[in-house]
Structures are given as structure tokens and as C-alpha cells.
């Protein structure tokens, strides 16, 4: 063993190194490490929170979608009902219109038939007179025999 002044020199060097390390090396490095650890912890917590929020939002969206679907189904149901109703109403209206048109047609036909009958009667009267004239070969005074003619017309 050869202990000498080297020991003192090394001791001084050791003390100086430790003091330098204590003052200028350790605090900034450990500070940076701890700050980064805090940042990372914060980030992880934030991401956890975000994930939870996302889950919540998804649940909410799903619920809203379900609700919307139900509403849509309701609306379609109502529309179908209304459609049936409208069709029925239209059918009833159409039936009534048809009946009305038929009735008026019938009436018209009746009137025209009556008119034609009347005309026919008149013409038959004329023909009968003409025929009688031919038979008698003489003119018959229409006025004098109008009562006979009228009777004939009425019989037709």
C-alpha cells in the first residue's frame, strides 16, 4: 500500500466533482425528467378522459339514432293511415259523383225521349191527315176537323 498526497488530491477532485454535479448537473436533468413524467401522466389522463367521452358520445349517438328510427317509423305509419283514409274518401266522393252524373243522364234521356215522342205524335197526326186526305181525295178543313185530329193525336 502506497498512500500519499495523491489521496488528498483525489479527495479534493472528488469534492469538487460532487459539488459541481450537485449544483449544475443533477437539478436540471432530474427536473426535466420529472417535468416530462408529469406531462406524460397528464397526457395519459387526458387520453383516458377523451376515450371515456368518446364512449359516452357514441352511446348518445346510438340512442339518438334509435329514437330517430322510431320517429321515422311512426311517421310512415301515420302517412300510410292517412293514405288509406284519403283513398277511401276519394272512392266515396267518386261514387257520389257517378251517381249524380248517372241521375242527370237518365233525366236528360227521359226528357229527350218525351220530346221525340211528342214530335212523333205531331208528325203522325200530319201523316194521318195526309193519309185521310188521300183516301177522301178531297181536302179536309184542318180547322173543322181539328177536334178529331187532336183525339187521334192523344190516342197515339
Amino acid at each position: 500500500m502506497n498512500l500519499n498526497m495523491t489521496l488528498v488530491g483525489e479527495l479534493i477532485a472528488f469534492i469538487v466533482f460532487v459539488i459541481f454535479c450537485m449544483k449544475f448537473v443533477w437539478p436540471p436533468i432530474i427536473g426535466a425528467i420529472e417535468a416530462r413524467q408529469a406531462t406524460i401522466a397528464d397526457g395519459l389522463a387526458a387520453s383516458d378522459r377523451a376515450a371515456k367521452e368518446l364512449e359516452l358520445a357514441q352511446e348518445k349517438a346510438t340512442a339518438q339514432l334509435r329514437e330517430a328510427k322510431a320517429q321515422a317509423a311512426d311517421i310512415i305509419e301515420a302517412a300510410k293511415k292517412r293514405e288509406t283514409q284519403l283513398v277511401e274518401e276519394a272512392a266515396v266522393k267518386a261514387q257520389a259523383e257517378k251517381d249524380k252524373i248517372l241521375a242527370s243522364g237518365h233525366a236528360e234521356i227521359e226528357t229527350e225521349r218525351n220530346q221525340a215522342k211528342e214530335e212523333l205524335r205531331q208528325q203522325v197526326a200530319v201523316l194521318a191527315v195526309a193519309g185521310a186526305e188521300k183516301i177522301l181525295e178531297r181536302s179536309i178543313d184542318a180547322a173543322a176537323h181539328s177536334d178529331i185530329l187532336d183525339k187521334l193525336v192523344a190516342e197515339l
Partner: protein
Amino acid sequence: MASGAEITSQEYIKHHLQNLTVGEGFWAVHIDTLGWSIFLGLVFLYIFRSVAKKANSGVPGKLQCAVEMVVEFVDDSVKSTFHGKNPVIAPLALTIFVWVLLMNAMDWVPVDLIPRIFELFGVHYMKAVPTTDPNMTFALALGVFVLIIYYSIKVKGVGGFIKELTTQPFGHWSLYPVNFILEMVTLLARPLSLALRLFGNLYAGELIFLLIATIGLFQLPVHFLWAAFHLLVIPLQAFIFMMLTILYLSLAHEDH
């Protein structure tokens, strides 16, 4: 290898274990030990300081990552052993760990490389591994020892410290002198074991490297094996020195 045939292996080893010394007797100074240790200490402080200056909590660079790994490793070691609040212990542990590691790592440099380079400049003795010099290891241990005493007295007071040294393990007053002798041995054994353990391991390692260097052609694979084995020894000794320092200082802080 030995430079000339006239040098026996015994002389070769003896030569390599000689420090570059200035002065005589107690006033002698080992220039090589002092120079290499201070150089390595400055390397340590330069690297760590350059990181510390740029340190921020953002995305770290590669060097910053490496340095932070070491710092965090030391910090974890300190926190797992020492539970009080002390701004000295963690930087002290970091300095000891990295400095001792760097000095031990000089053991990996081929035993003849550095002495040969210095031989070219006319320097005939060069022992490049500072921790193979007991002056180095005792200086570290002495520094730790002073801190042990300082914190023992600071935390427990002079009376408390003396009480701790005298009143245990035996409670009776008549046995206090015996207690004192036992406790003194314990107290003094701490720095002594710290210093001798580191010195012994590294000195032995260096000696074996020197022995291997004398066996001729087959030294290369053997050198490789021994260096590979030192992958364990070198960090382990640095770690043990740091860990025991933390342990002793935390014991000094414990108030019974």
C-alpha cells in the same frame, strides 16, 4: 507484450504496476492516477453538463435519453434505499457511479496501449486505471466517511451520535466501552471495506490482464475472455460502491 527479450515477465508486471510518481514518501503524487481520474471526471461532467444545459421536458435526444437513463437509475436506487430528504446524496451517488464506472472501464483498454503511447513521449511509467491505485479508492471512501460522520452528527446531534456508538448492542452501562469498541470497528470498517473492495477487485483484474499479456501468442482469446468477464466486474463494482454509499448515508440519517 514485453518490449525486449531481456525483460522477464516478473519485471514486466512490476513495471506496469508502477505509478508515474513525482515527489518522495508521503509527499509523492501519482501523476497518472490523478491525471486520468480528473480527465475521466471531467469527461463525465462535460457530457452530463452538456445534457443538463439543454435539458427540457420535451422529446429528448439520444444523448439526453442515455444520460437520463443513468440519472433515473441512480435516482431509483437512491429512492429505494434512502427515504429522507437530502439534496447531496443523489448527485453524490451519480458522481460516484459514473466516475468509478469510467475509471474502471479503463481496465478494458489493452494493458500496453497507453503505456506504449506515453513511452513514445519519454514517460516510462503509466498506470491508466485510477481505481487500481489505493489512493483513489481511499479518497472516495474517505469522502463518503466524512459525510457519514457529518450527517450522523447533524441528524442525531453530537450526544445522539455518541449515544448510538456506546449504548448498543449491550444496554448495561458497564459494557459501554465494549459497545464503543464494537461500534467503532463497524463505523471504520465501512470506508475501509468500500475502498479495499474496489481497489482489490480492480487491482486483481489488472494483474490478471498483465499476467495474460505475458503468455505469448495465445493471449488474445484469453484477453478477450477476461475482458468479457469484466463486463460484469466493472459495472458491478461501480454499482456496489454507489449502493453502499447510499446505504451508509441513509443509516447515518436514521435516528433511533
